[in-house]
């Protein structure tokens, strides 16, 4: 069982593990003074090297057989707008304007050492694997999308355009491909012409980062993002500009998601790592519900519309109907209004060919 092997890993690194049955409690106790997962692999991203070429995005797309993007990868204009990951894009490079010129940062799942997504998932669809990848198992996923709310980095996204088998999508650290021997490095790391990313044992990456700080005084903010954030992540960042200026939240603290909310419900056995985040998340759910719902709606509609460009017009109508139906089930009237607005906006953008399709939709 993967979850157990993850906890076992924690136990082995921190304190001796007596029996799997008490694993969560032992792990939590050990987590207090636990400082790092020494031999697990990770990736170090050096922001001073990235040139914003999007070759990593291209590689990711190829390796994961993702659909062709709307904007081709050799178009760098797109860097002028801020993007986030979505169900067909596991990684994005964003451009940040700083006083010393543009700085680029790649964004993808950080593969947290103690992932909030996994803690919040009550069917254990997310598992931290011993090779550092946070895996997702679509066969057990019930589509509640708590993981999306729990993730502090806003990474997992949902396949809204799939009516029957929607999955939560996110970077896999190329775990499947590397385990099968198809790849030796994550696709993005392999392809970067600047070696802005380095794959290796996490502790060696931390040392390497510090060596760079020492060798080039003044070049870096001498801190490694992901070393302690949210209890540590397998993806590490070093940067020449303050992290908050390159879109990395600096308010996350160093406690992992399970540890953060464990105290109040420590008596709850076995699932102690799961429920606290879930319950604690309810507050966040209520707060973010509206925002996410609106985002979801927009994404659903634009995904459906994009698909329609390639498919027959009838398919478009059907997909839209489905998308809207499923959306209706979830959101209140206010959000519906947002949908209409979004649709009206989309309509303007569509050329004459798609005009009829939009009419159909509006006529409903």
């Amino acid at each position: 069982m993967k979850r157990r092997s993850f906890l076992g890993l924690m136990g082995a690194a921190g304190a001796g593990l007596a029996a799997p049955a008490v694993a969560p409690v032992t792990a939590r106790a050990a987590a207090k003074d636990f400082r790092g997962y020494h031999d697990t692999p990770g990736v170090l991203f050096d922001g001073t090297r990235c040139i914003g070429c999007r070759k990593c995005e291209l590689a990711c797309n190829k390796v994961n057989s993702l659909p062709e993007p709307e904007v081709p990868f050799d178009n760098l204009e797109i860097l002028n707008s801020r993007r986030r990951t979505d169900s067909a894009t596991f990684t994005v490079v964003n451009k940040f304007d700083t006083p010393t010129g543009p700085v680029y940062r790649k964004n993808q799942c950080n593969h947290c050492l103690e992932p909030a997504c996994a803690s919040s998932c009550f069917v254990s669809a997310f598992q931290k694997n011993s090779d550092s990848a946070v895996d997702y198992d679509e066969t057990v996923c019930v589509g509640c999308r708590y993981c999306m709310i729990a993730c502090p980095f806003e990474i997992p996204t949902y396949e809204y355009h799939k009516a029957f088998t929607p999955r939560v999508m996110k970077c896999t650290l190329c775990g499947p491909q590397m385990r099968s021997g198809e790849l030796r490095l994550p696709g993005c790391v392999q392809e970067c012409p600047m070696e802005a990313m380095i794959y290796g044992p996490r502790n060696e990456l931390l040392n390497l980062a510090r060596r760079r700080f020492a060798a080039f005084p003044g070049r870096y903010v001498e801190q490694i993002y992901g070393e302690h954030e949210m209890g540590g992540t397998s993806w590490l960042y070093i940067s020449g500009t303050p992290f908050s200026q390159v879109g990395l939240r600096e308010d996350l603290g160093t406690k992992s998601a399970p540890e953060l909310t464990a105290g109040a419900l420590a008596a709850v056995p076995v699932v102690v790592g799961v429920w606290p985040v879930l319950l604690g998340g309810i507050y966040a759910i209520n707060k973010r519900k509206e925002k996410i719902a609106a985002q979801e709606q927009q994404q659903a509609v634009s995904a459906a519309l994009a698909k329609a460009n390639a498919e027959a017009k009838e398919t478009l109508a059907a997909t839209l109907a489905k998308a809207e139906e499923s959306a209706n089930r979830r959101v209140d009237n206010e959000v519906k209004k947002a949908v209409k607005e979004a649709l009206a906006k989309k309509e303007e953008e569509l050329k004459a060919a798609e005009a009829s399709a939009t009419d159909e939709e509006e006529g409903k």
Partner: protein
Amino acid sequence: MAYRKLVLGLSGCLFVLVCVLFLQADVMSMISSSGKDSGRADLIMIQAIAKQATKQAPPVQFLHDAHTEALAEQDKDCSSCHVKDEGGTISYKYMRLEDPAANRLKDLYHDNCTTCHAENAKARMDNPGPQIGECRKCHVEPATHTQTWISSGMDNMLHYIHWDSDLIAKDEGKDTNCGQCHHEYDEDKQELVYIQFAEEGCRSCHTAEPKEPVKSNLSEAFHGQCVTCHLENKEAQAERNGPLDCASCHGGPQRLEMQAKFAEKLEEMDGVLPRLPRNQPDAVLLAAKLPELPEDATRPTLMYPVPFNHELHEQATDACRDCHHETLKSSCTDCHTLQGSEQGGYITLERAMHAPDSKSSCVGCHNEMKQDPSCAGCHAAMPRGTEPPASSCALCHVNPDILAQRPAGQQSMDYADYTEMLIPAQTDGRQPAGEPVVVPEDKEGRAALALRLIDLRPKEALLIAEEDIPDVVKIDVLADEYQPAELPHRKIVMSMMEKMKDDSLATTFHATPVTMCQGCHHNSPLSKTPPSCQSCHDQRSQEGRLGRPGLLAAYHIQCMSCHTEMGLEEPAATDCTSCHKQKEN
């Protein structure tokens, strides 16, 4: 040269500004929590009440420049609020020379401020200032302004403008005017006197808390001296009088503007400021002072002395105090001893000269020069670490015996021979015990020796014969998607040589004809035929060579970071086809 000074000056100024902003933001948050405006250089918090036992009203935020301007409109000046002492020096304090008791001080402010404001009201001025009874107009809480001022000082150009000025009277019987500002206290006569060629910086006596017989602290001294003189000039309707407001000296933007003007002026002067007329040496032989040793003690091993080009460095620094800190009267080795002394803050001579990150150490300052775009292409990519490279010791620490072997002016282009000069008899560049190099004791003798040693330094950048530099290098080891890249190797080398042609720092420190090559051919031995990039940067996967870039990344990082550092905007890093053409197929 001038450009570099401008850039350094401006960036230094910006740095100071940023520092001040950060520090100040913290300090000021105590005074002002709302601080909405961008920060004023003239904000003075009048806190007379703070000295009292109980707090009666919040401190007053006094905008000095606003008052200076208002007074000027009424044809009044500083003397409306500041009194002069018997010597005619204007007091830094409001309406007084000395501080009375807290209560009296309060009355002093209340009486004088309100009287003036009341008079203004009587004269039906638009903005007469708060009147009696309007307490909360002055005693505001929370504070509405923030204070941001930068510390001011005389840099070389500002200094030059003063000692070159005809508006300042000449010293008696001399054609200099230094004595109008510089003075010393004569114990016997119990008065201030001027001694030519012994001028000191103000800071050496006027410290934050001066000791008797020095009366005024640094800000009192500066303001008393500068403002009094500027005011006198104004009263005499001189063509220029110097600033009388706060912001001109202490305002960030104003300072930047001034620096820009100075840079322009320097350019007009062909980038060379006349040297200060203080009889300072042209060259100095820097050698550690030996501690007192018992007769039979073994002499400690010392490095060879360093011939220091004082004249050259005067041009390259902003002010004498960049190196001399507080006083000009002692030499570096007086305070920075081998073991470190209290006077020198326990910073040993070795650190004082070599600390890589200190602005006042030789190495630190030279490191800063490397940030010039002409140099940064190579130097920014070189790991800097915490110590200067050992191979560079012999560039400064020269065995004076070399003079016997090589007469002045005779420069060798044969670099095998040249290397010998750099690393004399003892391979580690150190003096053998018991056979100390005889360094003259007297100042003149040492200066003369230093000059002769400086004279041995290369006068121009060294380079191997142009035809020995590969012309175009074809990089095709990784050609796959693109056609091979053609690196204009010789053109790059020659353009960099051109950039350092007139730079004595570069010509001295690029000590052999192949030193330049190390910019790209790093980590390989000095050679006309360095090993190829592939010999270290292979194409293997990252596993097993953590941190050392593979060949593809090595090329890209090298070329692109150099272009960025040198400020070359073309080609863009992501414009692949500008270096390697797309493959046609």
